[in-house]
């Protein structure tokens, strides 16, 4: 059963208003998982939390990660992968339509997966399936993602409308602690980054120099 919070004093504990300024979700993308690789169909980003000059590289990386994760996720399975301070949630449907949400690690993964369900259902209803394998991103007739991303920043509001917990069973979500865990044997993330054509030289350098290791616990 869904436990709703009943505050001792409703005057000061209005949780709904608390979430409106916090950015917890950074990206939502819809992809098509082809036989060789995953193809990005549509995406939306909320990068205001990142430094102005880093946003370009961060966006490239999110696209890159979404693609990598989709390619390594089997159809009809859900995964949540932790990568440094972020969580990447992916669901690939039986018809090879996939959704990826990138959030921080405090955003509940059940809610993220429910969001993916809703987005994919909506997308499939509005964009005919024959367009998925080969159409360019700009030609896909779907523009709801930015508004969806904003709405789901507040998981309470989105949850209340959709009754999350009955829909997605927790046990069906596979959790990984690092992105290395989803890569194939022998594959290294550094190599994938270097080989990637979608990452600019700036982003590759940003990756090499800005990786923090357990920096949340470091003193300086």
């Amino acid at each position: 059963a869904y436990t709703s919070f009943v505050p001792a004093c409703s005057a000061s504990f209005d949780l709904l208003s608390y979430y409106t300024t916090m950015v917890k979700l950074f990206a939502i993308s819809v992809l098509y998982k082809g036989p060789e690789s995953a193809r990005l169909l549509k995406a939306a980003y909320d990068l205001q939390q990142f430094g102005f000059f880093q946003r370009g590289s961060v966006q490239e990386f999110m696209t890159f990660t979404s693609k990598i994760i989709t390619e390594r996720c089997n159809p009809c399975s859900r995964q949540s992968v932790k990568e440094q301070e972020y969580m990447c949630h992916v669901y690939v449907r039986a018809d090879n339509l996939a959704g990826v949400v990138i959030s921080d690690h405090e955003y509940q993964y059940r809610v993220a997966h429910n969001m993916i369900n809703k987005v994919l259902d909506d997308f499939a209803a509005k964009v005919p399936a024959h367009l998925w394998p080969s159409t360019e991103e700009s030609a896909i007739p779907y523009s709801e993602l930015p508004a969806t991303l904003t709405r789901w920043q507040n998981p309470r509001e989105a949850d209340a409308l959709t009754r999350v917990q009955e829909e997605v069973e927790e046990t069906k979500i596979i959790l990984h602690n690092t992105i290395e865990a989803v890569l194939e044997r022998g594959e290294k993330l550094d190599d994938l980054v270097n080989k990637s054509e979608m990452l600019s030289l700036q982003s590759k350098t940003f990756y090499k120099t800005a990786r923090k290791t357990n920096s949340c616990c470091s003193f300086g």
Partner: protein
Amino acid sequence: MMFMFQILLIFKMKPKLIFKVNINKHHCRKTSKLERTRYRNHNKPADFFLGFSHTSGFPLLLCDSFIYITGKVSTLTTMEDVTCERIMKKIEAVLSQDTLLDEFDIVFSLGEVNRSPVVHVEHKLGLESWCVKHVYAYAYAKIMGSKQTKRREDPAQVLRWTQFCLLIAPEVTTFWNLRKVLLGQGDLSANLELHFTRLILSRKPKCMEVFQHRKWMFKNVIAKVIPQQANGPNGIDPEHHNGNGVVFHSEQIERFLFAELDLCTWAANKHQNNYHSWNHRLWVIQQFATYVGLVDVCRAEYEESHKWISVHVSEHSGLHYLQYLLDSIVSLVNESKVENVSEIVPYVNSVTKLYQRELDFNRDLIEEYEDHEALFCHRRFLLTRLRDLLCSSPQRTCSPPPPALKRSCVETVNSEWSSVLLGEHFLIEKCTQKKTYQKTLGEKHAQWLNNVIGI
């Protein structure tokens, strides 16, 4: 060894212009083992790449894959002095003219296009990375040179050099100390310095030295009563700066301190578990206690911290701050500075009810956001406080009761305490039914209750 790598220098580096920097040997000792260890543990590849030592600020020379600390005399491929000065002057100009500037970052660029490396767009300042290590090494050498010769340098120059070096390496206290001297002499305005430190935080929000500098400024520059200037007080904008040379009334100090709280929130949002910013916040509250008064600020901070915690459930620092606030509120009540808790926290009539309300809030977060240990740590704090409150009796001495008596504490009076413990049992049962980390957390909580509280 030195000879070996000079040969390597010739083979590896492609010199464009070589000029010798006589870095005095006092400043270029070999790194100590401690420093090397700190290096490895800190793992700051970004600063290595930019060309300076993170811990000491020494400029390093990046020679393809070789990184080394210079010995006596170093050679660098670099640009001319004039270019370095020009870049630094440009940055200084941007900083002094754009009062809305709120971000600084180093932008990766190979510098192939012949243009200024200073990027100024939409109130954001960027510096292209290709020039950083050259200009930094130049400015560093100038600063150290002037310290060595003890010649009185033109303050504007020293300010410009330190300004640049601090944008790149704000961890180096030498640069800050030079600026402190100039602040004291009045060669630098507090306005600009506060704006500058905020800009540095935009790139490195967890920099301890920046917060320390702001504390120093408050104590030595701002909180001092300074005679009013002839042309009257300027409009004080507490978000960016506080006027220099104005008599500070407690109202203005209050506004400054509130602005400081905003800065702490901003820095805390930029980096997780940013305990330097949370420590700074604690210090600000202490200044409130000294200069202004705790009641109003505690009321506001209580609300704010609950809001913050609701969206950052796994941050120990934020919860620790709430603990400090709760202790402050309780001491205000105990010292009779307020009549009742309800003056600070509306609708709550007693300290016991305050803790119980906190426990409820905490439990709801635990149930909604699973697998976060920070919430349990906070819960243990609350239970300890509540136990001390409910189970203390006049006959007991200060020393903690022996374990046998601990049990009697539960049995004797307190139906309140018993109901609290019952609530804990329910919570633990719920947690242990889960299959995730939440189960482990529940079990640990049960263990703690058993060992510490004695049930």
